């Protein structure tokens, strides 16, 4: 097994544990609750 594979396995473990932890704590950088209310410009952007 190459060192690159070892590093990749560590990287994978780090990512999976991070994603699972984020799910447990219901955290996501894509959640919308922080978005400011009433900030909409309104209307079509077409041309």
């Amino acid at each position, binding site marked *: *097994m*190459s*060192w*690159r*594979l070892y590093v*990749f*396995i560590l*990287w*994978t*473990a780090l*990512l*999976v544990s*991070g*994603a*699972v932890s*984020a*799910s*447990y*704590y*219901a*955290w*996501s*950088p*894509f*959640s*919308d*609750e922080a*978005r*400011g*209310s*009433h*900030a*909409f410009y*309104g*209307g*079509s*952007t*077409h*041309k």
Partner: protein
Amino acid sequence: MSGVRTVSCPNCGGSLEVRAAGYSVSLGCRYCGSILDVSRPEVALIAAYNREAATFTLPPGVRGTLFGTEWQVVGALRRSDGDGSWDEYLLFNPYVGYRWLVASEGEWQFGTILLDRPEGDVDSVTWRGARYTRAMYQPDATTETVVGEFYWRVARGDLARCSSYERGDDSLSLEESDGEVNWTLLVPVSAREIERAFGLKRYAPVNKRQSLYVSHADDTDDLPRMYLIATVAAIVALVLMLVLAGPTQRAVAVIKAPFGTTREGQLIGTIAIARPWQFVTIHAQGSDFENRWVDIDYSIVDRATGQSVDGYGLVEHYSGRDSDGTWSEGSRATNTLFGRLPRGTYDIYADAQAHAWPVDEVPQASGWNAPEVLDVRVEARTGSMPWGNFWTLLLLLMAVPLLATWRRVRRGE
């Protein structure tokens, strides 16, 4: 070791020892870096170049015991394939002969020159009953730096066509140059073993590049494994994320969005967060309107504390016709994701206001002179899956093998 002969460098006059006298043809001067032809009685100067370039982990003269035999490093080459470089060390023992050590990226292989040629075709060869499969990477190797002595005439810029055939961790290397064909059996040796054998305090390879023999073979081996690991990890993460997202509860209502004014405090329903933390998604689906949009402000209010978490949703749809023909944009449906909601019971409220485009006037409903109202179906749901997290995870997992694949393709393997 025996067979040592002393010669003088014709370039600088330095006194040099030929450690494998009678075998060596080329010798690099340790004082001025010149390459000498030591096969002739009168030592001839082949070429001179900057010796400073010769910075090898195992300099010529170093001795070590590998596989029960004491070896002396008599020569070192730095070779490249145009994309990266690696080091090759020529080992010598007067009773056993020559062997090779190939080093790159901290990985080593011990090479034995074959006297009996493998048989086969382009795709695979057989040697002593074992079948070796052709590796994908088949580079041309150019000699960049020469230090020490060699049993053939070697010069900077020498070009060799290389092929590699693999069987597990072992490989057969074929080199063709100037009509000469050489086969070498390469077996992996751990860096620790090299450290022990040559008394290196800390192994620090000069070249952090892919090895011609080792790493490209590893690339071939470990890339499918990397894809497999990434896929399995993504599936495991997906299952765990789905399990951690649940359980699911729903609250559904149809809210009214009037034009010109905001209708506030419309109750969608009540949901309970059953886990310590959960996501909540609010899905809004507008009715079949055109050139309208609806701003929706959500409030998820904790019954126990009265605190609310706010969010915003927008349903919109526009269409028209211009010089390019008909067009449309926007979506009558939208999702708003709420995270970090702790365990508890929540009431969900929505404030909604409708707008018209291009002029934000108040359309009147026919007949009753009452403002038009748009209906929006709103569904709040616990147990939502944070798909953004998952797609990011998948991207980061696959980025490494995809990058490695791209590098291989770029090298033309």
